[in-house]
């Protein structure tokens, strides 16, 4: 485990397709990479008791969450042969259909990135203190819970 200070994984609002595309572009100089794998979490317009979710408002215990992202990252590098990995999570309002989580892993070979990505995404859902308020079209709300 390194002593590097945790990076800030949070971005205000939705993660744009430009941002995602640009991240892919930036890896073209890293020519030892043979395989990327990407997870994009998208806000779903769930229907709950006849009401439709129009957005999720994310908050987090940011210091602890960034430390957890950092720990997950370090654990993933130990477990898998990764060249690099990036995690970005939204804070604030993300509308249905927009992206709220972007995880990007890269490795010389493909098999590793499938396993690594699942491991990382499951750990994020389970261990990182992020909270989501599901806002309905009539402005009422309920609190999202990961299962």
């Amino acid at each position, binding site marked *: 485990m390194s002593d590097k200070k945790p990076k800030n994984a949070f971005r205000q609002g939705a993660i744009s397709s430009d941002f995602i595309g640009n991240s892919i572009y930036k890896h073209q100089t890293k020519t030892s990479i043979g395989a990327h794998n990407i997870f994009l979490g998208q806000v779903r317009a769930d229907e709950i008791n006849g009401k439709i979710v129009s957005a999720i408002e994310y*908050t987090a215990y940011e210091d602890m969450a960034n*430390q957890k992202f950092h720990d997950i990252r370090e654990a993933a590098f130990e477990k898998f042969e990764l060249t690099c990995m990036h995690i970005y999570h939204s804070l604030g309002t993300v509308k249905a259909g927009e992206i709220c989580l972007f995880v990007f892993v890269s490795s010389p070979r493909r098999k590793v990135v499938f396993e690594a990505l699942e491991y990382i*995404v499951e750990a994020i859902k*389970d261990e990182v203190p992020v*909270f989501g308020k599901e806002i309905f079209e009539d402005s009422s709300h309920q*609190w999202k819970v*990961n299962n």
Partner: protein
Amino acid sequence: MYITVKYFGQIVEVTNTQEETIEVAGGHVSDLVEVLNSKYDQLENKDFQIAQNQELVSLETELTGLEIALLPPFAGG
């Protein structure tokens, strides 16, 4: 001792504040929770985990005086 207590998500709907200082005689996390339950009567109906100095702890953990956070169910991603 005086402890900074932070609240998140649906817990804030019970406390109406995101952060405050609570005085406790010391002891364990359970002693602090007792103080909070008597201050906020709706808190007992809420599901939450507790972090001390950004690490999850149990009710039996000793209070160190470092920051406490009440964390409702996680919903990242």
